[in-house]
C-alpha cells in the first residue's frame, strides 16, 4: 500500500501545523472534560464581570427598572458565530437571574437566525425559576433589524425610554459598541460589556462598570452553563496560552541561532 506524503494530504494553504494545533487543543480540552466527569475539579479564576451580573439584575429590581440585554446585530452564519454563541450563553444566565429576582428583561438584537433561540432562552429563564407570569414574548425579546445603525438607533432608544437599570451587552460589536454603552451611561444604568472584537474592547473596558476582555466572554458562556465538565474545557484554553508562550519563548531563543521558527509554523 502506498502512503501519500503528508503535504499532499493536508492543504498547504491551510497549514499542517495549524491542523496539529487544532487537534492538540481539541484533545487537551477533551481530556480535561473527561477528567472533570470523573470528579476532578479545577480552580477557576473569578471573572469579576461575570460575578457582577447578579448584582446588576438584583439592583435593577430594587430600583424597579428593567434589565436590558443585547447580543448585537448581524448574521450568525459568519465567522462571528462563536461570539453570538457566547452572548447567548450569558443570556441564559441573565434570563434565569431575571426569573429568580422577578426582573423585567428586555433583550434587543439584530440577529435574525437567533430570534427563535433568544425567545426560548428568555422563556426558559422565567419558566425554570417558576415565574411564567412575568414572561411576555413580545415585550421581552425584540428583534430590531440586522442593519447596523438602524439597530443601534433603536437599541439606544430602548435603553433610554425604558430607563434600563442594568445594561448588559455581550457579543460581537462594531462601531455601535460605544452608542450602546453611552446610552446606558445617560440613564445611569449598571453596565456590563463584553466583546471579542479587539478594536471595540476599549470602549467597554473604559465606559462600562465591568467588562469582559476578549476570550473572557467564551469563559463566561461556560460558567453560565453551570456544568462542571463544560467549565473544565476552559483549561483547554489555558493549555493553548501555555503553548503560545512556549512557542514565543522558543522562537526568541532560536532566532539568534539562525533558526526561524516562524517559517516552520507556517507549514
Amino acid at each position, binding site marked *: 500500500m502506498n502512503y501519500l506524503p503528508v503535504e499532499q494530504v493536508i492543504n498547504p494553504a491551510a497549514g499542517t501545523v495549524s491542523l496539529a494545533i487544532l487537534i492538540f487543543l*481539541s484533545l487537551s*480540552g*477533551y481530556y480535561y472534560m473527561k477528567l472533570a466527569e470523573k470528579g476532578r475539579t479545577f480552580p477557576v479564576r473569578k471573572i469579576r464581570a461575570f460575578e457582577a451580573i447578579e448584582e446588576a439584575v438584583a439592583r435593577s429590581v430594587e430600583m424597579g427598572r428593567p434589565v436590558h440585554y443585547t447580543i448585537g446585530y448581524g448574521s450568525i452564519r459568519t465567522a462571528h458565530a462563536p461570539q453570538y*454563541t457566547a452572548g447567548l450563553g450569558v443570556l441564559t444566565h441573565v434570563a434565569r437571574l431575571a426569573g429568580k429576582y422577578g426582573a423585567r428583561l428586555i433583550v434587543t438584537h439584530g440577529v*435574525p437566525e437567533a430570534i427563535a433561540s433568544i425567545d426560548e432562552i428568555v422563556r426558559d429563564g422565567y419558566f425554570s425559576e417558576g415565574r411564567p407570569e412575568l414572561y411576555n414574548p*413580545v415585550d421581552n425579546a425584540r428583534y430590531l433589524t440586522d442593519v447596523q445603525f438602524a439597530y443601534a438607533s433603536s437599541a439606544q432608544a430602548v435603553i433610554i425610554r425604558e430607563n434600563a437599570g442594568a445594561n448588559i451587552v455581550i457579543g460581537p460589536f462594531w462601531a455601535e459598541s460605544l452608542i450602546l454603552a*453611552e446610552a446606558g451611561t445617560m440613564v445611569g444604568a449598571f453596565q456590563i460589556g463584553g466583546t471579542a472584537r479587539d478594536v471595540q474592547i476599549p470602549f467597554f473596558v473604559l465606559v462600562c462598570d465591568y467588562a469582559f476582555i476578549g476570550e473572557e466572554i467564551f469563559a463566561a458562556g461556560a460558567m453560565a452553563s453551570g456544568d462542571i465538565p463544560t467549565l473544565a474545557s476552559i483549561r483547554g484554553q489555558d493549555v493553548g496560552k501555555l503553548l503560545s508562550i512556549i512557542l514565543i519563548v522558543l522562537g526568541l531563543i532560536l532566532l539568534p541561532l539562525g533558526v526561524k521558527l516562524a517559517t516552520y509554523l507556517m507549514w
Partner: protein
Amino acid sequence: MSVVWRRTIPQLLVAIILVVMTALYFLYIDKTTKATLNYWDGLLINYSIVIAAMAAIVGGVDLARYHVSLIMKREREQIPFSLITIILEVVCVIFAFYALATGVPILTQPQFSWIYLNLQVPTSSAMYSILVFYVASAAYRTFRARNPPALLLLIVGVIVMLGNTSLGFAIWPGFTPLKDWIMTVPNAAGYRPIVIGVGLGTIILGLRLILRKEVTWMGRRD
C-alpha cells in the same frame, strides 16, 4: 423519541457540519479532489446564505408583529411611529418584489433606491457620526487620574490626541512621532494576546459544540 428529534438530532447536525467543514478545509489529497471538496464547502456556505436570507424575512415579520402589538395596545403616543415603520417596511418589500418580478437589480429599482438613498443613507451616516459626541464624553470621563493606571491612560490619551492634530504639531513637533510610536509598539503589543485568546476561545467553543456540551443556542432546556 421526540427528545431525539427535539434535541439530539439538531446537536448532531451541528457537530457533523463542524467536523465536515473543518475536514473539507484541511484535506487536499490532489487537485481534483480538492476541487470537489471546495465545491462541497461552497455548497454548505450557500445553504447557510439561503437560510440566513429566510431568517431575515422571518425577522421582518417579527418586527412588524412587534409594532402591530404596540398598535393593538393602543399606546396613543406610539401608534403613529409604529405605523410609519410598518408602512415603510411594507412599501420597501412591495418594490423589492416588483424589482424581482421585472428582473431589475434591486438597488437600481427607482423607488427602492429612493428610499435607500434619501431615508436610510442620511440617517445611517448621522447615526455613525453621532459617535463623535459619545467618544468625546467617554474621553472626558475616562481620562481622569483617579489612580496610577488611570494616570497612564490619561498621559497616553493626551499624547495621541495631540499627535493627531496640527494643534499638537504647533505646540511641539515631537507629538506626532511619539503618537506613531505608541500606536505601533505598545498598542500593537497590547492587542496581540487578546487576539490569541479569542482564537483559543473559538477553538474550545467549537470543541464544546462538537461534543454537544454547548447547547444554549437551542433555547429551552427540553
